[in-house]
């Protein structure tokens, strides 16, 4: 493939985050290509979630920039970045407990269709909103539970709703923070299928501990260790990389080699 022809949708340039004396993100230069299925892996405490928080604007960086489709977005508020098409999910479910999945999606879709400040129509009066909600409910297999309170539905379904909300924001780039974390084995399949079925035009950056999912899903993998990028490559390259093996097998290994 011609390297120049690949369009970069999301890029970080020298992203740095220090908490006091601790460097959580160490000059990270990451590029996510258009339509990519890019995985970000690394041991616990490698700074994966911090990196997501920096990209989405929840945390201000100490230095460095975030670019979305070539435009700098470092100065934008989190909600403004979402409007530009950078959307995330959360490792720990962040849902609207008093609403039903349908209400939640209707709210997000309305907001997305710029009806969020509408105060005279009722929610879901617009047929465009209803159609999109039905699509999303089906895609994420939530149709059965669409009318139950979110706090009452099974954990696996809530995990699906977590992703459905993000997709309802019509992202250009979707950041998935451990989508299968804590999901019991019986409900895993369903979730993996849904992740695989995400629309092709949406670029995905996946943060995951589950190596099966990563190697099945990703076409490119970045390994993050101690806040810095250790290496990046195709799944085959990463699978055979000695340093990556060392990191995952234990630090004593690295010390002996290094």
């Amino acid at each position: 493939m011609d390297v120049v022809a690949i369009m970069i949708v999301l890029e970080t340039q020298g992203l740095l985050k220090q908490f006091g004396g601790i460097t959580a993100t160490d000059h990270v230069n990451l590029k996510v290509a258009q339509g990519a299925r890019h995985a970000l892996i690394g041991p616990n405490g490698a700074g994966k979630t911090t990196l997501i928080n920096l990209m989405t604007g929840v945390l201000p960086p100490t230095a460095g920039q975030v670019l979305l489709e070539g435009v700098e977005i470092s100065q934008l508020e989190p909600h403004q970045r979402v409007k530009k098409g950078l959307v995330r999910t959360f490792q720990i479910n962040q849902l609207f407990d008093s609403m039903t999945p349908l209400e939640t999606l209707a709210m997000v879709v309305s907001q997305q269709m710029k009806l969020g400040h509408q105060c005279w129509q009722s929610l879901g009066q617009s047929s465009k909103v209803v159609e999109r909600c039905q699509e999303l409910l089906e895609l994420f297999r939530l149709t059965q539970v669409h009318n139950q309170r979110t706090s009452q539905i099974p954990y696996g379904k809530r995990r699906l709703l977590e992703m459905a909300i993000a997709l309802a924001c019509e992202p250009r780039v979707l950041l998935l923070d451990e989508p299968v974390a804590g999901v019991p084995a019986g409900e895993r399949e369903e979730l993996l299928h849904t992740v695989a079925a995400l629309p092709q035009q949406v670029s995905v950056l996946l943060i995951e501990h589950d190596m099966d999912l990563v190697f099945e899903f990703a076409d490119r993998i970045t390994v993050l260790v101690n806040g810095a990028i250790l290496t990046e490559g195709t799944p085959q390259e990463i699978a055979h990389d000695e340093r990556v093996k060392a990191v995952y097998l234990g630090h004593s290994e690295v010390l002996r080699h290094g």
Partner: protein
Amino acid sequence: MVNEMAIVALFALSLDLVLGYAGIVSLGHAAFLGFGAYSAALFAKHIMPDPLLGLCFAMATTSCLGAMCALTILRGSDLTRLMVTLGMALILLELANKLDWLTGGSDGLQGVLMGPLLGRFEFDLMGQASATYSLSILFASFFFVRHWVNSPLGATVKAVRDNRLRAMAVGINVNARLAVVYVAASSLAGAAGALMAQTTGFASLDVFALDRSADVMLMLVIGGVGWLYGGVLGAVAFKLMHDVIAGITPQYWTFWIGLFLVVLVLVGRERLLKPWTWWRS
């Protein structure tokens, strides 16, 4: 009596928007009630005696006050909001006390003469016109608010209350949403204050009192927070209880209200209203 109930119900509706729908804890909601009352009374005295115009004027001025106060409640936790709202009511109380050339100070603003409603219906001693007036405004506001909470905008406000972090992550401008609700609610509270001043022809310092803010919160707790009918039902129940108990023991009625509250909160509204479920496990 009906007039009074309609006014406190409107006031409770306003607090329900703030507390029940937006999740902002306020212990100084009387600030808006009082500001609306004085605005309406001053408007009638110095500018025009027409009640509807006065009502609009009071709602407009309280909205402005609400917009200013909104800046103070966007930051901080529940406790800081509690203190800031309480402080705001105290500041206004003291201002109304001090500016006696304008407000009549501790004597209250007297001699407010209202014109007839719609140029036709005089406010009389029987209070029929006032009760009808207040009830109409209450119903109109209730209709409007019910529509509003079921709209996409209302849904985004509930989303902010449920989970601020996620609301931000789906592209909602959290602070703008909270400010909108706060301004809308403050104008409703201002309307309640205006009705109070217009139907009694009087505005006094006690409209700003902490009791008012506390009572309206009790009404909401009795009726149910985050449920529009809750404010109205709570206001009616509270006023009725007040009247009945005060009729029996005029001096100790707060004891019984207190006891009722403790039982209500400990047992739960559901169970209290359904005695037949008491002995089921």
